[in-house]
């Protein structure tokens, strides 16, 4: 016999919630089927997903052909099996071209080595928990020069002209150089824009507003068509170097605006306190203002970097061969005509992975630097 338990009023322990309100079922009721509108939205979304996802998966993987020597072979396989999908064989055949461009085959170890040297240099810069960070940072300072020497050659290595650079390697060269070069220049421009000296301020404002007012592609055209006119007669100037300079200038103007936002967010009392302590302008900037301002600007700076990295694709318009350029050039081959979608999807995946990693790193950094309360 169960003995009826009695409670004094107000002392009954809480009953467990009904099973339909907790756990998986509760979650579904709460988040998917909460109200009539909610149910309608859920059903419509599911229908939409049903329309989009299966055909996409089948094109990308299930019905795709991964091996073959030409588009006709891909087509033959598809007709034989009655499938209709992507022809990834093309990407497989041209994979090296996509990675290295036309870099001489015998020298490709230099690209690989540079890539790992870059990773090794990035690690201590990006993570302050890295072992031997101090030595790592010294290494990171000299690594760009070593990498530059490795890629271009000379001084004992076979020289490789920069026209041979291409593929993902070119994207990384332009992207990383742009990022490394534009950050310091951008900070200087932002400080100049906030300067008390009218001449310095006007020069910086004019530069920033000019660059931000025109599209990158026109600046690249300037670099490729008319920059030579402004140089002493008889000088020729490497196209890649011209592009790099333009990319750095372009990105620096945007970085400057982001950093300016950070500088403006620092209360005036900070710089007054620094003055009162007797710090010089550069000391107070380096020790008091910039550390705080840069911390606030991190999301914006990383966004600018992501933008710069994506903008490296524009170089195909002035004839450099980044992955898109390599892909479009390969499509001209009669064996592989008409496979543009495959090329674009492949390159899109590469950019998506790189850009999303940068965005994630920015989130990590924001969390780590969040020292407020």
């Amino acid at each position, binding site marked *: 016999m169960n003995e009826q338990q009695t409670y004094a009023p107000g002392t009954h322990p809480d009953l467990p919630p009904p099973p339909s309100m907790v756990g998986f079922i509760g979650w579904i009721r709460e*988040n*998917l089927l*909460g109200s009539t509108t*909610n149910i309608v*939205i*859920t059903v419509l*979304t*599911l229908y*939409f*997903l049903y329309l989009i996802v299966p055909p996409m998966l089948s094109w990308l993987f299930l019905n795709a052909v991964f091996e073959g020597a030409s588009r006709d072979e891909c087509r033959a396989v598809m007709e034989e099996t009655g499938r209709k999908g992507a022809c990834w064989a093309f990407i497989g055949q041209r994979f090296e071209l996509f990675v290295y461009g036309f870099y001489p085959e015998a020298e490709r170890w230099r690209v690989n080595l540079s890539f790992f040297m870059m990773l090794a240099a990035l690690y201590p810069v990006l993570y302050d928990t890295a072992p031997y960070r101090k030595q790592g940072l010294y290494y990171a300072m000299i690594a760009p020069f070593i990498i530059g020497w490795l890629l271009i050659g000379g001084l004992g290595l076979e020289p490789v002209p920069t026209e041979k650079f291409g593929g993902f390697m070119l994207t990384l060269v332009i992207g990383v150089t742009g990022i490394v070069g534009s950050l310091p220049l951008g900070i200087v421009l932002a400080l100049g824009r906030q300067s*008390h*000296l*009218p*001449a*310095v301020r006007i*020069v910086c404002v004019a530069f920033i507003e*000019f660059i*931000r*007012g*025109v*599209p*990158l*592609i*026109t600046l690249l*055209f*300037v670099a490729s*068509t*008319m920059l*030579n*006119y*402004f*140089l*002493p*007669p008889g000088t020729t100037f490497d196209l890649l170097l011209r592009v790099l300079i333009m990319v750095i200038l372009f990105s620096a103007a945007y970085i400057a605006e982001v950093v300016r936002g950070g500088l403006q967010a620092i209360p005036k009392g900070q710089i007054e306190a620094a003055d009162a302590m007797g710090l010089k302008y550069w000391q107070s900037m380096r020790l008091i203002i910039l550390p705080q301002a840069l911390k606030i600007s991190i999301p914006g700076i990383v966004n600018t970097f*992501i933008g710069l990295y*994506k*903008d*490296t*694709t*524009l170089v*195909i*318009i002035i004839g450099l061969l980044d992955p*898109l350029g390599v892909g479009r050039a390969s499509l001209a081959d009669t064996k592989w005509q*008409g496979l*543009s*979608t495959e090329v*674009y*999807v492949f*390159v*899109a995946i590469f*950019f*998506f992975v790189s*850009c*999303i990693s940068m*965005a994630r790193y920015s989130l990590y950094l924001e969390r780590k630097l969040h020292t407020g309360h």
Partner: protein
Amino acid sequence: MEATTQQPLWYRIVYDKETRSVAIQVLTIALLFAFFFYIVRNAIVNLETIGKGYSFSFLWDASNYDINQTLIEYDSRSPHWRAAIVGIINTLLVAVAGIILSTIVGFLLGVLRLSHNWLINRVVYVYIEYVRNVPVLLHILLVHGIIVNTLPVPKNAMMAFDGTLFLTNRGFYTPKPIFEPAMWAVLIAFIIGIAFAIWFRGYAKKIQDATGKIYPVLLISLGAIILFPIIVFFLAGMPINLDYPELAGFNFKGGLVLRPEFVALWIALSLYTAAFIAEIVRAGIQAISHGQTEAAFALGITPGRTMQLVIIPQALRVIIPPLSSQYLNITKNSSLAIAIGYMDIVATIGGISLNQTGREMECMTIVLALYLSFSLLISAFMNWYNKRIKLVER
């Protein structure tokens, strides 16, 4: 102070703040002038060596090339300046169309992103992340590739909306409206409708201030602007003729054609920018604290009017500045048209004209000046609008 003026000049430049700042500025200006003098001199010498001057007279020569999408009269005998104008109009066309579409899609996505429905929330999130992390040039090429490679040839065109829209790999065809003179009446009715709506808005506000009575302003305004012209349209005996596209040989004849380059550029730019606008809208709405909604409800304001009077005006303040820079971006990104052969400014005067005449300096000057003026115009307008809705503080 007396003491410092006694010091030698070099000492004051290093240690006296006033003197030093003057010295730095003089140095900056001197360096700048030296730099410009140097490059201009180089340019003059270089141009002289190859026998070119710096003159814009080439703009009046015949251009000798055709442009596939022209909204004004143009053929290959027209001068270069006319080609430039065609390019400007094409740039503005795709920029304005892109701004409109991306704003609509962006706001929609932004609101969906805030939905409590987990599924739609995630789907929109994945979509936005995909779009934002892939270069816009790639989007343009991908959409263009899909239109050109997968849509059917005109002969077996894909029909949509009951034969009013034909999708082919040569472009999208739809009936072209041809206006009869009586259409003026409809246009006048439309203008009267707008004027009435503006007057009624002021009148309703006056009544509300005086008596507290609220009129359904939006409904009545929409009626005046949309319904009234439609009634006039039918009264005037439907003064519009439709010119239907017809298949003739290998392609459609007649009708209104949206070329694949335009469609690809327009859709790709709009979808790309919409993803950024969606994030801006989401951040803007989330920036308004929930207390605002609760306070409005506590005052007995209905949810619809809470949104209209409390949330949206405040959210707009957060949204407008980044939104304006997205509008600038869409205008600048339209220059990527050249990758798929849409004839905008960069492709006409900065592309074909430049290559035909060899006048790099002049053509690039024109292109840069045009983009700078577009940017300044858009940002001036957005600054004006931003100032109008800005929070007035002490």
